[in-house]
């Protein structure tokens, strides 16, 4: 068997394992098998590539080994971050993925250019190269910025940054990049080609920044998903450049995953891709808080505890505030105490709760809350009128009834958790200021709603103490 056949067989098995890996993610029971299968697939891919390289007389093995070791040394601590920091870790790894693709594309172009390799720089390859570096470098800077926003790094503006003519100037720059790309396809070996290529790199780096600065925190789940898709597509483009079907397949799997997650996130916010990327959410909306001064009705934790003890069904709606306050373990205590008193407790999880898809599920799973009690919005909404108490923890827009009723609201049409249909609502809120999107929440002003002001962790801790009967009656 020739080395090439062996390589292709290893790649074939690797591809199958990657597909199985994602298939096993369909159920929490089999999901860990998916990870092992993915590790196996990646090992085969690396072994196969090294085999191929060895057979054709490659060099620099010690350097390659060193790069592996360094990557592993940085990767290991990145996997140990607290789970509240998972969104920024994910964004950071999109950045690494984008950078890798961009660098390989750059290397390939300058290699072929240096060799005056006309046969290699076919129009198809050049298109793929341009796509690879465009997506790769855009993902790189965009994800770094997204990670910075999520980490709340000081010099990165948290609020969306907008200015007049933003979309028009972005579009004009994109036109320039496109023009450079077309010129490269036509004359890949022209003396100016390296400059055109360099120009596309710089523009791609700029696009990443320009696309992310107008985006606010509430849109992060969608943006992270889109960046995920871009990282995958840049791997696909690399596969076209290298004529490597394993790269094409694995990249396509990643790309379709990012795409599906973005679609789910967009649907959950009733917005289009276009609107997320170019709409600068949150900026226009802050002004809508006009009208009469409404008053919150605050209540004590003690009476909240008493009401919850008497309830049959308590539904907890977690949001980003829970993650910020690291309140998941206190939530677990309350969950346990209520269960012990015979109260049914369910969690209602909105698709865009938190800062990335599935963020809340992971936090609550970390606190050892069984996943059978974590329900999706659609699963629980039918039961909401039966809920005696809804406890909203650090969530805002996802329970705002304005999404159903107020046509002028920026979140109008967004599917929400029907907290307002429950018999009573308790909402934990850090301050009296409006939520991230800057919109007033009518839910908080209903007759049946009581506010518990304070840090989510502190309030939940006190609630747990009252439920346990300490310092109470």
């Amino acid at each position, binding site marked *: 068997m020739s080395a*090439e056949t062996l390589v292709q067989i290893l790649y074939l098995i690797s591809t199958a394992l990657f597909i199985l890996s994602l298939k096993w993610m369909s159920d929490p029971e089999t999901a860990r098998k998916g*990870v092992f299968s993915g590790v196996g697939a990646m090992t085969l891919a690396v072994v196969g590539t*090294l085999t191929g390289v060895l057979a054709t007389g490659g060099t620099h093995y010690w350097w390659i080994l060193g790069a592996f070791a360094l990557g592993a040394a940085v990767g290991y601590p990145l996997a140990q971050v607290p789970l509240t920091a998972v969104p920024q870790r994910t964004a950071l790894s999109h950045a690494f993925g984008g950078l890798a693709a961009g660098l390989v594309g750059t290397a390939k172009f300058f290699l072929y250019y240096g060799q005056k390799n006309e046969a290699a720089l*076919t129009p198809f*390859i050049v298109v793929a190269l341009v796509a690879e570096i465009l997506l790769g470098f855009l993902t790189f800077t965009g994800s770094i910025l997204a990670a910075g926003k999520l980490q709340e790094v000081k010099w990165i503006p948290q609020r969306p940054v907008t200015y007049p003519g933003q979309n028009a100037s972005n579009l004009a720059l994109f036109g320039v990049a496109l023009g450079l790309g077309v010129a490269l396809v036509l004359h890949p070996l022209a003396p100016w080609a390296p400059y055109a290529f360099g120009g596309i790199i710089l523009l791609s780096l700029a696009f990443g920044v320009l696309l992310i600065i107008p985006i606010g925190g509430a849109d992060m789940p969608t943006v992270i998903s889109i960046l995920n898709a871009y990282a995958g597509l840049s*791997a696909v483009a690399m596969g076209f450049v290298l004529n490597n079907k394993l*790269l094409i*397949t694995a990249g396509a799997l990643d790309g379709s995953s990012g795409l599906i997650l973005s679609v789910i996130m967009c649907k959950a916010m009733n917005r289009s891709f276009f609107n997320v990327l170019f709409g600068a959410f949150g900026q226009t909306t802050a002004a809508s808080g006009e009208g009469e001064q409404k008053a919150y009705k605050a209540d004590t934790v003690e009476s909240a505890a008493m009401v919850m003890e008497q309830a049959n069904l308590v539904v907890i709606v977690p949001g980003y505030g829970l993650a910020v306050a690291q309140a998941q373990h206190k939530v677990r205590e309350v969950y346990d105490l209520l269960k012990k008193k015979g109260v049914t407790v369910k969690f209602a999880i909105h698709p865009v709760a938190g800062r990335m898809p599935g963020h809340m*599920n*992971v936090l609550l799973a970390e606190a050892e809350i069984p996943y059978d009690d974590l329900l999706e919005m659609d699963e629980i909404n039918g039961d909401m009128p039966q809920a005696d108490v809804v406890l909203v923890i650090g969530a805002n827009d996802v329970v705002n009834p304005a999404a159903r009723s107020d046509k002028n609201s920026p979140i109008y049409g967004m599917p929400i958790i029907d907290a307002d249909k429950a018999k009573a609502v308790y909402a934990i809120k850090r301050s009296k200021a409006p939520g991230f999107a800057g919109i007033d929440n009518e839910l908080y002003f209903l007759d049946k709603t009581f506010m518990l002001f304070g840090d989510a962790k502190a309030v939940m801790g006190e609630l747990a103490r009252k439920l346990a009967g300490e310092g109470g009656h």
Partner: protein
Amino acid sequence: MMLLALSEHPAPAAGGGHGELDVMGALFVFMLATFIGVMVIQRVSRLLHTPLMSLTNAISAIAVVGAIIVSAGKDYPGYITALGLVAIFCSTTNIVSGFLITDRMLKMFKKQEKVAK
């Protein structure tokens, strides 16, 4: 010049698939893989969307294949090798952290009876 060009492209196929570029074949693979991806991912439990994303992060670090090919090339200029090595570093970071954190998260998802002692 010509020799270099030849050694790079049409001849040896092993370096991870440097064979004759079959554009249509590659596009077919892309199309089929996308459909498989969409169908498989649609069935992923919503509970697991965060681990899913970190898993696909690790999977997209398949770029390591391209990075190795670029780094290991004989007689390539030094800066090409350097770009490849940085790309290997980035991809390996994603492979290691992606798989590890996915597994770490998945271990936490427990059913009712397993939690209650």
